[in-house]
């Protein structure tokens, strides 16, 4: 009975770690350490970005559980707290029910309120536009583009759209306002606004962790994450390209209409 509870707990904490931006080797090692701490000697832990399998052998009896991981929450605050929780558990070895309670406590913490989140997206686009050499006007245009990215992400998250389509739509919608302003109002460097806002869409966690996972020998994971990075990059590229060509075609159509 106790082993089953431990198994369930290990899968839970593994999933939470993975969803909040932990590397594969961290997920595997954390579960391994907890199992070691509770005196399980014959164990196997296997993790890839979409799945964790944990096996505990007791005598001739095997306890196995696998969890499928679909969504990512990317909450670095929770990653920090989960990592600390793992260390505490390995040191103190409290009963498993106590662990479940502590895990629930960590996961219950609310994310930032919507306003802070929107502001963060806007400000990131704002400062990255300045960083890439845009002027203050460009940065001011990039701010609402950042908000558009956040809005698209939340909306697409609600309808469970895939990463390709989400990034395509976000790339297209955020590129439109600067391009339109550039063409019909002027005074705005659309390139700078778009580059600054693209930084929000870059899959930072996947890029950072792909390298760290290769080192730990997780080549399967590295390939999976690489595919994710490429799909996201392709989505952004296609989205922005659609916006650029769309605006150009609209301009041509308007010019033709004007001539007629």
């Amino acid at each position, binding site marked *: 009975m106790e082993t089953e509870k431990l198994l369930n707990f290990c899968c839970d904490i593994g999933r939470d770690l993975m969803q909040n*931006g*932990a*590397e594969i080797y*961290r997920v595997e090692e954390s579960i391994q350490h907890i199992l070691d701490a509770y005196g399980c000697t014959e164990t196997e832990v296997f993790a890839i970005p979409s799945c964790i399998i944990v096996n505990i052998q007791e005598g001739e009896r095997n306890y196995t559980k696998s969890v499928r991981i679909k969504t990512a929450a*990317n*909450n*670095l*605050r*929770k*990653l*920090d707290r989960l*990592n*600390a929780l793992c*260390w505490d558990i390995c040191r103190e070895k409290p009963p498993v029910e106590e662990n479940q309670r502590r895990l629930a406590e960590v996961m219950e913490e609310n*994310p*930032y309120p919507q306003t*802070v*989140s929107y*502001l*963060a*997206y806007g*400000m*990131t686009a*704002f*400062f*990255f536009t*300045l*960083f*890439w*050499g845009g002027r203050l006007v460009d940065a001011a245009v990039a701010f609402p583009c950042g908000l558009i990215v956040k809005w698209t992400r939340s909306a697409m998250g609600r309808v469970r759209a895939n990463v390709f389509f989400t990034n395509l739509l976000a790339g297209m919608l955020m590129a439109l306002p600067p391009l339109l302003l550039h063409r019909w109002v002027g005074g705005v460097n659309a*390139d700078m606004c*778009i*580059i*600054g806002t*693209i*930084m*929000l869409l*870059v899959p*930072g*966690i996947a*890029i*950072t*962790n*792909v*390298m*760290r996972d*290769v*080192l730990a020998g997780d080549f399967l994971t590295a390939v999976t994450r690489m595919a994710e990075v490429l799909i996201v*990059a392709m989505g*952004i*590229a296609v989205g*922005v*390209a659609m916006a*650029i*060509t769309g605006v150009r075609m609209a301009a041509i159509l308007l010019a033709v209409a004007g001539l007629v």
Partner: protein
Amino acid sequence: MLKTFLPCLWAFLASMAFCFVFELRRWRFILAASFTGAVAWLVYLLVDGWGSATQFLMATIAAAALAEIFARVFKTPATIFLIIGIIPLVPGGGIYYTLDALINGDMPLFVQLGMETAASAGAIAVGSSLVSSVARIVTLLRRERRKK
């Protein structure tokens, strides 16, 4: 002078805003992660003239080393600081201009910019791999010495 190093300030502030996107809470984490981003760009500017791939390599090594140090100081995964700190190095401009060349049908420019962007991405990968391999070996050695 000021104009050259102003981007470091923007990198700091942009990284700080990014911390909120990734839900970082504690102020010392936020400051440390933003500092990592600013230092990465400072190093990039300091080794100006070494060729862009080398610049990216040196900047990433600096950022990754700093991230590992912060991880040991604050007892938290290094990846937290690296995810934020490496963002200013991501060649966003390179990706965009490559795409622009493709749309305009300028194939030679597309290939040139594409290769440049790929090279800088490779340099970032190599740099961060080097540092975290060394950090891992150092940790294992220290752990073994403590056991003895």
